[in-house]
């Protein structure tokens, strides 16, 4: 568990959460999550029927990848909230990097909570996901 004594506003944590995203990883995510929308896994449908250049990842996969950075940073059981806006599509071949920046450390409901701004960008530095998270830390 992180310790508030070692944290300060503006502190950053960053991870590459996927490199060269494969269509197979998107299929793994579809199978596990239950979202079988062919827009994500069926390139014949996605291109010939829906008119996209390829399949694209579900936003929730990007959120899951971003969550990996967060849990590596603050811990799984320490998460208190996590919310995001999906700003751009994620395509096969993308590399994604997720960053958390500390915006506040405060006492809430008997716990010391760190508040984070969260952002995930692709290899062109375009923002694909923007959000926030909060987590419990040691005082």
């Amino acid at each position: 568990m992180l310790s508030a004594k070692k944290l300060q506003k503006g502190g950053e944590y960053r991870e590459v959460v996927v490199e060269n995203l494969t269509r197979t990883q998107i299929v793994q995510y579809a199978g596990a999550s239950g979202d079988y929308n062919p827009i994500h896994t069926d390139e014949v449908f996605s291109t010939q029927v829906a008119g996209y250049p390829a399949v694209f990842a579900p936003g929730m996969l990007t959120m899951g990848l971003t969550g990996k950075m967060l849990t590596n940073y603050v811990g799984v059981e320490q998460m208190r909230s996590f919310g995001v806006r999906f700003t751009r599509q994620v395509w096969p071949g993308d590399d994604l990097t997720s960053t958390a920046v500390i915006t506040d450390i405060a006492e809430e409901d008997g716990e010391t909570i760190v508040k984070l701004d969260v952002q995930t960008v692709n290899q062109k530095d375009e923002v694909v996901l923007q959000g926030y998270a909060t987590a419990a830390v040691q005082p």
Partner: protein
Amino acid sequence: MADSKDNKKQVIFPVEAGHILMFARSIGDENPLYGAIGGEASDHIVAPPTFVQASAQYTPGYPLRPVIGEPWFGSGKTPSGRKPTYGQEKQDSGEEEKRSEGSNAGMLHAEQHYTYHRPLRPGDVLHATVREGEKWERDSQRAGKLFFSDAITEYRDQNGELVVTARAVGVRTEKVIKS
């Protein structure tokens, strides 16, 4: 029983170690808290923070899951196995714009939020109650008019305790965003 005025729908979602393992692999996460690493199983397993989304597997009639024997809007012999529920083609000075087709046609996931009251563990049986929320709209440069709607899902455990609260915001666009 839900009547026409009651827009609450309940789903029963058992949390299982094997499901958590496959979900963790799909996000490329080898955290030992998610289960087997190289064949060794952990006896302390919790779910990743976005795992509750997989309650879709237990949602009766979930529209993005194929039903055996029923036509499916993805490809098989043909690029799409059935006529889409929504399917609009806009022709504007020679340019064709297609709306994403299917049961959730044109609806994109705009936002997702979770509040965690306690970690999820295998053996938990969650009762998910969905409540439709607000609808609103605004204009955007890239996509024309945007139509938003949100839904709140409360996941309670076998003791009736709130475990996770989720809020999903969907958006329908006037134009398909291709980039």
